[in-house]
């Protein structure tokens, strides 16, 4: 089997609202330029392109086809798309590289959440027969999970606020973050509930943004990057969509994906946890001890570009390998309600 590595990563600033189209083109053009330019590549050097986005978020049909304009797809390219976070597009591209079909791939995700009503758009991922017709909103569902965890003694409002405070403090060093700064847990707890037991700081912000990763195989990766982030484990698992039938206080799919991907011994983990309590849950599910640095970028609580945020977690983790500050890292992405589906990508630097 060939070795495949993350060799490049770029993302837009995370902002509350952009003035471009919901096709993402305006956000994608500069980050394609950045990531390809940084590697000394042009679009013709890329063997496979794969994206993640959602038409429900974009409010128009085939927005991912319009997004291809950002590539300049002439002569024609080999291209694919998932209607999921682009972390799953990365998985598809990784498989393509493993098969030896191509040596390089560029993966991207984009989301302009500001165009619609994110809490309602998220109802479209639920069971269309017996759940979506009630229009459960993403905060309402997460609030149920948060309260059940509080009552089970797994976390409390204090420890949830501490996650938010740590995330914002970490994001001070991330110039692309939407929310950053020094905040006291007591200050956060003084704010009112948005959807009890969740306060504003417990919920990832609404963000417009995009992210991109370049993968390369074998010698090509070594040519392009001084210290490639070699993918040593890449797994995704899913739980039943019937969240009333599963134990929402753990995430069997996250446990299984972490175990299969070899999460043991990572130094840094970037977790896709859109709610503070979900970071605590995921830490436990992935077996991350206190010595693991979690979300040094601030994570999605500092900026949550839908359909790009999971990919960006993998990119942020890979960056710690590229810059030599870590030798084994983990990027995580989630999809579906209440951490239903989870993906874990473990990467390592080699001397």
């Amino acid at each position: 089997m060939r070795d495949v590595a993350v060799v490049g990563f770029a993302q837009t600033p995370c902002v509350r609202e952009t003035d471009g189209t919901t096709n993402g083109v305006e956000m994608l053009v500069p980050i394609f330029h950045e990531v390809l330019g940084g590697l000394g590549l042009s679009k013709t050097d890329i063997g496979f392109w794969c994206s993640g986005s959602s038409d429900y978020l974009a409010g128009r049909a085939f927005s991912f086809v319009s997004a291809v304009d950002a590539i300049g797809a002439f002569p024609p390219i080999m291209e694919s798309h998932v209607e999921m976070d682009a972390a799953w597009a990365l998985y598809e591209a990784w498989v393509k590289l493993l098969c030896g079909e191509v040596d390089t791939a560029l993966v991207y995700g984009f989301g302009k959440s500001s165009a619609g009503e994110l809490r309602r758009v998220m109802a479209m991922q639920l069971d269309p027969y017996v759940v979506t017709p009630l229009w459960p909103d993403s905060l309402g569902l997460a609030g149920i999970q948060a309260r059940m965890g509080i009552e089970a003694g797994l976390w409390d409002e204090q420890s949830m606020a501490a996650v938010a405070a740590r995330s914002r403090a970490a994001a001070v060093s991330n110039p692309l973050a939407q929310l950053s700064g020094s905040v006291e847990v007591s200050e956060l707890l003084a704010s009112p509930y948005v959807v009890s037991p969740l306060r504003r700081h417990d919920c990832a912000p609404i963000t417009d943004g995009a992210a991109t990763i370049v993968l390369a195989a074998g010698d090509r990766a070594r040519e392009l990057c001084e210290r490639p982030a070699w993918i040593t484990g890449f797994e995704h698992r899913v739980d039943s969509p019937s969240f009333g039938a599963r134990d929402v206080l753990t995430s069997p799919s996250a446990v299984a994906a972490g175990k299969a991907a070899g999460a043991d011994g990572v130094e840094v983990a970037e977790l896709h946890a859109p709610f503070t309590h979900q970071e605590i849950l995921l830490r436990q599910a992935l077996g991350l001890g206190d010595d693991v640095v979690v979300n040094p970028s601030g994570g999605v609580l500092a900026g949550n570009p839908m359909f790009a945020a999971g990919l960006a977690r993998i990119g942020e983790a890979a960056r710690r390998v590229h810059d030599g500050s870590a030798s084994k890292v983990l990027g995580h992405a989630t999809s579906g309600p209440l951490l239903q589906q989870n993906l874990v990508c473990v990467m390592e630097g080699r001397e």
Partner: protein
Amino acid sequence: MGFDYTRSLGPTLGRFLSDLRRRKVTGIRGSDGRVHVPPLEYDPVTAERLSEFVDVASTGVVRGWSWIPEPLEGQPLDRPFAWALIQVDGADTSLLHAVDAGSPDRMSTGTRVRARWRSDRAGAITDIECFEISDEPADPPVEADDVTMVITPVNLHYTHSASPTEDPFLRGLMEGRLIAQRCPACEKVYFPPRPACPTDGVPTTDQIELADRGTVTTYCVVNVPFLGQRIPPPYVSAYVLLDGADIPFLHLLLGVAPEDVRMGMRVEAVWKPREEWGPTMQNIDHFKPSGEPDAPFDSYSQHL
């Protein structure tokens, strides 16, 4: 943006929703003996097809909840309410629904609730209007016909901003001007403009103004009526390549019998009265033949 999704139900969900119409809640027994409400078609662990329906109660207990102080469009109640996972009596799993508790102070895990049935029931999860806090039994079942389909309307709202390239185009239209954009790399001219040149992947930053006449590159005769049609068929939809542009766009062609339309026909815009103009291509009511000789095929063959 709205769409009424019409879905067939199959034997499992059909039974569940038909029974809701009868003010009855029905579960299904899983491979491990657990009773699932709502019923699942296949067991979540063994993937076995499930078929043993189980009558359960329309009363139950709250297993988890959150409080919605400001309900959103489409939600079961328009006043503050709780979302709750409710384990109905006789079930082993929980159903998501709203609880009309009035205040979060009245909600707690373990609270007893019962279904409040809607009077006009269609065979849908919304036949339960919500749950209410009560120790009493819910209204008894009644007779009703089976349902095999469910309509689930989806209405979502979007604000599409005019992007940096669309902005001069839309402003131009308000003044009766056609503003195109040229790719700085390949010099192709796009009308309407695009955020980036699809050939080169760079923003189309150079603006140029085009005249309101051009050539029909191809066309079709619309004979089929459809929802929202503006004029009675038959009529002609034509791709018009404005002089100086590299991409044709679709517009209406009037003033010529369908059988007389041809590729290469020269056409000009017929604008609506100025007082009706807005930031839209509909300012051009339609195109009509300009009377010029047809354009030679070579002049538009690269733009088909």
